[in-house]
């Protein structure tokens, strides 16, 4: 095919995908139903792999579709479905507008050692240690963090600006949303990647995808055997070099009439730019001279694939040593565990599966989910953690569990979530207003949705909180509501493994229906 429509189709399709992703992450009012978000996310490679490892169901095998697509057509995924890749294309285009020089790429040799090392390192680390490098390098998660950390606040500021203006006219359809940032240090990783990817894509096209991105490298390896490819017709080609100059992947060696399929992302720019119409996209011709097989490379592909598919079992084996809560903690007012979001099952499980794409952080209507610094240790950096000083978990909400693309947060039915204990309440009487000030408070008990925090008689007419851990689910509303500073008088300590809480019992009120006015 030489049709210029290929490129136009690519642009249109990828623009749609990018817009969808943008909307999903920018949806701070939680308007889009979770099922649509799940459809969009089901084809994201790394999240889908992790979800498949967890569930093993066909529905979670979106990555298999991506693999098949790659075997058929090359790295189409990178241009059509990867939001980070599409974003980079957009940025390259802007770069080309700013300076013509940025638009002239030309053929470069691949950074084979770097990219293969990174892929191997990512896989190895994922298997023997944890998904730390996956968190850092998964393109979808990087994109998610960009949206959550940088785009979302801008969108909310825009919303607030508009709502201010509308408010002046007495219109309240848009509401002011407080912009709450995250801890400064948690910006370091997203900022680093933003600068890196921004600079590389602005000036060098898809260099990030072809040098660093492990997904790009993996799909590149597969696409070496893909059926559909970019081909140059030697008989027509006048070796003008336009294709090479316009190739974002710098993968067209026009003098040799060779296209490095491991780097080609099927953007189809070369087809349109070729004045001789010598470039086409189609089934690879069989009159091949390439007889010598590179056994080393094949081995690499084979082992990579084995690693990817063997990951579930290796990973499971790792997780066998189930975490046991440390009993030796003697430090008062000390949180022994961070609180991991509902559906995480256990901190260990959750840490193993979450790629820190931050979608849940974006989606949480209460902003209780915050990117972790060292709460989970190094391997859990950037993963969401419940921060009860900032907010609390809404009793009637399961949104984060519904949209998690990697199944790090298992979907929870509302009734199940209401009985899932993610932390335990602890009351420090010596901090409590009722004891220190001898005045009424009860903010914690008021907030408690299960009445795991309730009030009992204290001195005089006063009432003081008491706790019943049995029915506590660790939502953190008590900790959030507690007005004492700097330390709270009531706090939720995470549990290593989420537990089943008892259902709160309730007896019929003994108060009779009045038949007459009591006054």
């Amino acid at each position, binding site marked *: 095919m030489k049709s210029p429509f290929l490129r136009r189709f690519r642009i249109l399709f990828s623009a749609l995908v990018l817009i969808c992703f943008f909307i999903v992450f920018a949806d701070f009012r939680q308007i889009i139903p979770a099922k649509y978000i799940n459809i969009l996310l089901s084809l994201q490679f790394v999240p889908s792999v992790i979800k498949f490892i967890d569930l093993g169901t066909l529905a979670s095998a979106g990555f298999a579709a991506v693999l098949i697509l790659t075997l058929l057509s090359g790295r189409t995924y990178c241009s059509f479905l990867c939001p980070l890749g599409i974003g980079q294309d957009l940025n390259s285009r802007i770069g080309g507008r700013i300076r013509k020089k940025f638009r002239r790429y030309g053929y470069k040799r691949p950074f084979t050692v770097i990219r293969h090392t990174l892929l191997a390192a990512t896989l190895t680390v994922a298997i023997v240690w944890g998904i730390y490098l996956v968190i850092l390098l998964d393109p979808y998660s990087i994109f998610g963090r960009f949206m959550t950390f940088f785009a979302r606040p801008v969108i909310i500021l825009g919303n607030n600006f508009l709502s201010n203006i509308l408010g002046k006219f007495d219109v309240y359809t848009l509401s002011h949303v407080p912009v709450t940032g995250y801890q400064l240090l948690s910006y370091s990783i997203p900022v680093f990647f933003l600068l890196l990817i921004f600079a590389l894509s602005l000036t060098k096209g898809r260099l990030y995808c072809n040098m660093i991105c492990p997904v790009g490298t993996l799909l590149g390896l597969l696409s070496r055997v893909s059926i559909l490819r970019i081909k140059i017709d030697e008989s027509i080609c006048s070796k003008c070099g336009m294709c090479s100059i316009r190739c974002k992947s710098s993968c067209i060696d026009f003098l040799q009439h060779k296209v490095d399929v491991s780097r080609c992302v099927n953007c189809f720019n070369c087809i349109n730019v070729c004045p001789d119409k010598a470039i086409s996209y189609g089934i690879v011709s069989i009159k091949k001279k390439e007889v010598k097989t590179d056994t080393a490379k094949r081995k690499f592909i084979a082992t990579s694939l084995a690693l990817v598919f063997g990951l579930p079992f290796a990973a499971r084996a790792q997780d066998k040593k189930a975490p046991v809560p440390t009993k030796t903690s003697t430090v008062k007012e000390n949180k022994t565990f961070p609180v991991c979001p509902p559906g995480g099952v256990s901190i260990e499980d959750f840490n193993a599966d979450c790629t820190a794409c931050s979608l849940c952080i974006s989606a949480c209507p209460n902003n209780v989910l915050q990117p972790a610094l060292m709460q989970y240790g190094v391997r859990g950096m950037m993963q969401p953690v419940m921060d009860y000083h900032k907010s609390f978990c809404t009793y009637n909400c399961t949104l984060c569990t519904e949209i998690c693309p990697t199944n790090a947060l298992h979907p929870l039915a509302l009734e199940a979530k209401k009985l899932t204990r993610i932390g335990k309440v602890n009351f420090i009487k010596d901090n409590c207003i009722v004891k220190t000030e001898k005045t009424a408070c009860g903010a914690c008990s008021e907030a408690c949705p299960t009445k795991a925090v309730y009030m009992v008689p204290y001195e005089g007419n006063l009432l003081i909180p008491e706790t019943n851990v049995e029915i506590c689910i660790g939502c953190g509303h008590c900790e959030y509501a507690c007005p004492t500073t700097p330390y709270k008088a009531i706090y939720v300590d995470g549990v290593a493994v989420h537990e089943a809480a008892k259902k709160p019992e309730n007896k019929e009120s003994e*108060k009779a229906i009045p038949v007459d006015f009591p006054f």
Partner: protein
Amino acid sequence: MKRRDFLKRSAGAGLAAGATFGIGRYDRLWTDVPGRAKYDMVAIMGGTPNAMFDLGIQELGGIGAFIQKGQKVLVKPNIGWDVLPELAANTNPSLVKRIIEHCLKAGAKEVYVFDHTCDNWVNCYKNSGIEKAAKDAGAKVVPGNSEKYYQEVEIPGGMRLKSTKVHELLLESDVFINVPVLKDHNSTRMTCCLKNMMGVVWDRGYWHSNDLNQCIADYALFEKKPALNIIDCYNVMVKHGPQGVSKEDVVQMKSMIITTDWVAGDAASAKMLGVDTEKIEYIPIAHKMGLGNMNLDTLNIRRIKM
């Protein structure tokens, strides 16, 4: 005797209702007639929230006695919790709707509804049924979730609460109608008229950590006082307040109290809830500060059973 009383009163109410139809604007009739029976409080029992409000407000001369044409009205229900209407943690939505309809009929230019919720505000507004009810009736439902909407005001004479940030609509509206729902409360023992004001301020934590009862009473000093307190005692949460756990916490009292004196309203509500008024500390404090009258015996109360 009681039945006779009741019949008499019913007849009176009937006459009034008849007059309404005959003359058109019954509220004007009542307000204009000199020496009419002006009650400090109307208590109604036995009807639906809507019917009780219709009857009760009529006894007070209609809502037009409190609102002038072209005025902006703030109706402040309790929408504090992300809980379904039948659990009675929030004001009855159909009552809110009815009040708004009365206000607009009486010529209010605009009616606003908001609350500074405890749970997530979007969920509260939605699941309480109040957002829909208020919008259906033609009111503007306004968010109260951001500090941006709140303005610092002085509380002259406040013991512990000397200044606080209140919602801008409280300041901008001409008339303020307080529509609390009567509930048990875990630390103050009851939440009603005065305590409902914690939903118009931004920083509740300050109240909690600086003598909650005194702060609740202090706030009543603020110049913008409710023209009317309409207390929803239809479904009453008698324990596990103010949020409640399940339906077992609710007793259907099918009552309503309408009063211009919010301390009296709270005192009457305490009786409904069966709690000693003295134990609900902010009531005697507010009474002593001269913010209202908790001695129900000295008030002119109109009691109606439907």
